[in-house]
């Protein structure tokens, strides 16, 4: 099946850049147009699976463009998501009547856009799964590995301190990090370890090696059938934009910038490898599904947890169960990624008629409904329902047994 095509119509290069960055790790084809006229032309030519359409643009604005899209029999069925800073009731009603599928209010987060698009098209990460599908049809649709399995990371980096930092960042996941000081050393290493059980699951290469050595190394990796599906990421300083762009054009799935964000790094690797991260958080306790979410959940971790939770929760109901315990033991501080994950999982659970209970310390959890309500106003929560709406108090159970008795 071909990659989903996404057309972004916006007069702002900044918006194009942000959307392109947001979808960089997904197996999608991106197309861009800078006004309604160009958007119509691109839609007719590309036949995208979804259109992201700005409202205020020169030449032809988004509302007129939407009208013309809906009047064209060959384009009218393409779902359109409006991106607009003008979210007044009148404006929203006007575009809703014209058949817009959804709208995103500016300012928006990467998570907002990916979440909305993922409701309309099947988003798959770039990397081993996507490549494996073409190389090995039997593997199509199957995940290669889960986040709790043994993962091998090959790091090709001149500075040992960076390799040590990466080892430290993934140490609590039990992943193995193999360091090589140069692309030549790494090429020799991979040539000597081609048994499937020794193949790295992801390769990180410094983009600072002279003479485009990282890109040459990438070519070596891709010419090897065993390593063809292994995702490769760059390592560089933030300002090395030329190197990042060259790497991306070559086929790298993304770049990790230095100084490394050690908290976020494991989640970025999980995403690049397209691993299901729910085993980190979900487990069954008899007939009850338990989800334990840590206080320091990162932005990317939150986004992926929410995405994978949908299938996890529907799988729970399919298997004849309908009870969920959200374990927030030890959580004292509620940052936005954690709040968003809690809201999305509980709302999804409620939609599937799953009954949920919360476990934790009453003293720490009691502000949760108020925090959820106050955060509804910020962009990261736009269009995410408050699972505690209408309830003045929240029942918090000290342990799983107490929560189970309350079902």
């Amino acid at each position: 099946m071909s990659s989903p095509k996404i057309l972004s119509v916006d007069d702002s290069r900044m918006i194009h850049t942000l959307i392109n960055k947001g979808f960089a790790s997904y197996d999608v084809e991106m197309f861009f147009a800078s006004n309604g006229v160009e958007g119509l032309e691109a839609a007719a030519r590309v036949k995208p699976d979804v259109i992201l359409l700005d409202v205020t643009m020169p030449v032809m604005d988004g509302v007129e463009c939407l009208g013309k899209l809906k009047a064209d029999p060959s384009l009218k069925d393409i779902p359109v998501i409006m991106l607009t800073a003008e979210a007044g009731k009148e404006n929203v009603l006007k575009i809703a009547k014209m058949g817009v599928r959804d709208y995103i209010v500016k300012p928006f987060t990467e998570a907002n856009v990916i979440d909305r698009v993922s409701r309309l098209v099947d988003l798959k990460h770039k990397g081993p799964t996507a490549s494996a599908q073409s190389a090995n049809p039997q593997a199509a649709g199957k995940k290669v590995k889960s986040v709790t399995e043994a993962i091998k990371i090959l790091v090709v980096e001149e500075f040992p301190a960076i390799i040590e930092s990466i080892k430290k960042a993934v140490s609590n996941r039990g992943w193995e990090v193999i360091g090589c000081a140069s692309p030549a050393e790494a090429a020799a290493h991979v040539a000597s370890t081609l048994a499937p059980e020794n193949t790295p699951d992801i390769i990180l290469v410094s983009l600072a090696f002279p003479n485009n050595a990282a890109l040459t190394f990438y070519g070596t990796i891709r010419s090897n059938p065993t390593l063809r599906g292994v995702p490769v990421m760059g390592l560089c300083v933030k300002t090395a934009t030329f190197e990042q762009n060259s790497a991306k054009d070559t086929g790298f799935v993304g770049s990790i910038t230095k100084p490394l964000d050690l908290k976020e790094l494991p989640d970025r690797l999980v995403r690049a490898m397209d691993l299901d991260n729910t085993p980190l958080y979900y487990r069954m306790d008899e007939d009850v599904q338990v989800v334990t979410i840590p206080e320091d959940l990162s932005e990317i971790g939150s986004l992926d947890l929410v995405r994978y939770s949908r299938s996890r929760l529907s799988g729970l109901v399919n298997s004849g169960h309908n009870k969920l315990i959200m374990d927030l033991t030890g959580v004292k501080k509620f940052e936005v990624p954690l709040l968003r994950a809690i809201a999305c999982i509980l709302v999804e659970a409620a939609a599937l008629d799953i009954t949920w209970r919360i476990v934790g310390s009453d003293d720490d959890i009691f502000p949760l409904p108020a925090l959820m309500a106050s955060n509804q106003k910020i962009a990261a929560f736009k269009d995410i329902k408050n699972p505690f709406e209408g309830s003045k108090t929240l029942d918090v159970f000290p342990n799983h047994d107490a929560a189970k008795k309350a079902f």
Partner: protein
Amino acid sequence: MSHSNTPSSELILDTINLYVPEVVQTMVGIAATPNAGNAHAPQLSILSGVTGSIGLSGKVNGMVYTAFTEKLAKIVAEKLLGGSASDQDVADVVAELTNMVTGNLKSRLCDLGFNCALSIPSVMRGDDITVSAKNASMSVSNTYGIEGCSDVLTVQVFAALEQ
């Protein structure tokens, strides 16, 4: 703060104090803290750096200016785009952030029954640019402290209700 159903200087000041921090926090990932602000600012305002401007026309007419110092505009653009930003990138980011603030102000005004249209954003560069609106009955100004930067972001709004 509660307001009547007619747009006032105070409502405009409250609205920009709500949306400027939200836009900067969401898009750039840094905090913008409003200062006291002036709901009755002088009709002549002097702006410097990279200034985005958008016009409102309809039941409310006016202009919204967001003035970033050159240094602040560069910091914001590079943080937002995740790499070095050319002058064109900086101008584009300032225009889009101005659009987001003004679009949300417009939504607030529209919800009160004062519908208006927005112009396409434009960006000017230079120091000591004097802006004024002789017929504006409302002139609102505020500065915003930006986390990790000594420079401030200045927002100036001129508005008049349609007679």
